[in-house]
């Protein structure tokens, strides 16, 4: 049953606004790293900005490095704040509808950051939808959206008991060369992005192997990019993919299964009508 934004509780409005904002930022981040076109138009010093939503907690930050920068680049001070006067405005804007948003320059490069953010947001949507997008890129965007979505909603009170009974631990999520780590602790979920295909790393960046392989309490792996796309886009039921071996889970199963329940809640949020 579809829920309308106005029917949500204050907490749900706040969670939805932060979720939408978080997804927008992470999509820009992933698209920028994966898409050569976006890298070309990325300002020379990279992009650093914040999104602030009144009534929805602390501002969310975005750092997009120019790949030619020598990593690791120190985080830059944000040059721009995109401020939304209320949660509804944020949800509307990030759902593609009209809504109030106030760009607040915080330093030099504010306008180029704003221009880049707009183009990158639009490009991320295009990459997700365009049939000619490389499977690795689509899978990467979908996985990022899903996992950062979990991170954004994990603390809400609806999920409190669920999060209590899910054991703490780290789940590795893999599809082809895509690798994320999802750490569940108490009522929080933290997503860590490991090396991704298409990441343009500087020549002196340390190889992934040199960073060591941390212990994973569970592993969720997709047989390939296509399997990840089909499952994450809803084209293929996760349970069928699991049964057919296209999706594989190992290790501490209640940890992964518990996150599936959070995923159901994420789907509910994404289905809210503005």
């Amino acid at each position, binding site marked *: 049953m579809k829920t309308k934004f106005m029917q949500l509780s204050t907490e749900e409005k706040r969670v939805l606004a932060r979720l939408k904002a978080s997804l927008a930022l992470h999509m820009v981040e992933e698209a920028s790293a994966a898409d050569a076109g976006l890298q070309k138009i990325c300002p020379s010093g990279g992009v650093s900005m914040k999104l602030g939503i009144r009534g929805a907690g602390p501002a969310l930050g975005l750092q997009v490095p120019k790949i030619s920068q020598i990593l690791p680049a120190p985080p830059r001070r944000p040059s721009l704040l995109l401020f939304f006067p209320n949660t509804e405005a944020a949800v509307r804007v990030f759902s593609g509808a009209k809504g109030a948003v106030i760009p607040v320059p915080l330093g030099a490069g504010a306008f180029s950051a704003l221009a880049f953010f707009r183009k990158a947001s639009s490009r991320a949507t295009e990459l997700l939808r365009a049939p000619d997008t490389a499977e690795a890129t689509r899978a990467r965007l979908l996985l990022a959206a899903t996992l950062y979505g979990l991170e954004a909603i994990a603390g809400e009170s609806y999920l409190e008991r669920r999060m209590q009974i899910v054991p703490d631990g*780290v789940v590795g999520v893999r599809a082809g060369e895509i690798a994320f780590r999802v750490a569940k602790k108490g009522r929080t979920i933290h997503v860590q992005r490991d090396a991704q295909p298409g990441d343009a790393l500087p020549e002196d960046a340390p190889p992934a192997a040199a960073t060591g392989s941390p212990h994973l309490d569970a592993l969720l792996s997709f047989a390939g990019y296509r399997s990840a796309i089909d499952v994450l886009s809803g084209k293929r039921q996760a349970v069928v993919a699991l*049964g*057919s*071996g296209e999706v*594989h889970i*190992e*290790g*501490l*199963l209640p940890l992964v299964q518990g996150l599936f329940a959070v995923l159901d809640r994420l789907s509910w949020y994404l289905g809210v009508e503005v």
Partner: protein
Amino acid sequence: MNEMTDETSGAAGSPSSSGRSAGAQDSRFAASMAYFERAARVIPGGIYGSKSPGFLVPGHFPYYLSRARGSRIYDADGNEFIDYLCGYGSQIVGYGNPAVDGPALEQARKGDLLNQPHPAMVELAERLVGLVDGMDWAVFVKNGTDATTLATSIARADTGKQVIIAAEGAYHGAANWCSTNVFPVFLQAEQRDVRFFPYNDVQALEALFEAERGNIACLILTPYHHPTYKPQQLPTPEFTAAVERLCRAEGAYFIVDDIRANFRLDMHGSHKFFSVHPDLITMGKALANGYPISVLLGTDGLRKTASSFFITGTYWMSAVPMIAALATLDEMERMGGTARLAELGRVLKDGLESLGLEAGFRARVSGPPAIPYLTFDEDPDLYLNQRFCAAMADRGVFMHPHHNWFISLAHSEEDIARTLEAARSAFAELSSSLATERP
């Protein structure tokens, strides 16, 4: 979390796959897979609940079983397995045992679900009241959930108190009050007055009784702790003493949920095995060797309240399972009863632990010998369980990686020997694959 300390666990903590890939096994389970694909279109989840493929190791286990005989099960593709899940414990004298099926099928021909109960209901109630230690009356239902829900409801009605206490991780059924469907709408209603404590933790239990003093209707416990995904725990004498003392002081009823163990430990009930004295007992699973029936047994003190309950279900008084239950009780005794189950279980337990050790693993079989469960001390995340059980399934032995196993009286010494032979090879495969994965 779950830091591992030895070489073996290091490899277990860096998994790459659990043995052979699902794809390599596809042809072995082609029919199962085809049914599953069809099922997913018309049944939520394809196969729901504890039988879901994700609960096993997909690619190594069948999804659909077509038939069974004795200790063997046969899947939709015709693969044969020595079975240690026994229909999740419902089989105790063997699949298709003619001593049970004979009278049951004869009654099926005469009539199963009738307007009024069959006389067998009286015979079975008398038999159970005479057999199960300390119990004075019996009410028949279908599933374990029916029995545990009825038990807690009777306790609440009798005491006029709301709170139910249960152990963390214990399974008492799939009703909203006890299920893992922790949606807020249930948390605010059926689950609102259910409290949990860590099993065997006397201090935590005392603290909970103190915090809820005057509000506790009952404490429900399995006779020993058999949580999913974890080693089984037997109760300590201090814990059982505290349970009885606290319930008495609070005026709360003590319920033993014996659905799973049910006659596998003691023909007089598992509470007898552990020397505890419950007010209510639920039994099921193997009660009728797979025919659908469970029972709530109670003491005289609760007879009046039970009598005042409107207890009914369309199928709750069907005759065939009652006939089957009577025959199962006879057959269990004829086949050697709990002593034989324990003996077979002990051989399996010792064999698995010893073979595991030989292969360099800290494999440990927990729980009573008749209801064993193997885990690896070096791998609480269960990667090794999954690999081991997948390897056993590849060798024709059905051992669940996440749920305790069951010995039945249909298992033979030869079955156990064949199982241990398969285990030797499975441990070797596990050891070898881990060695290959080490950097």
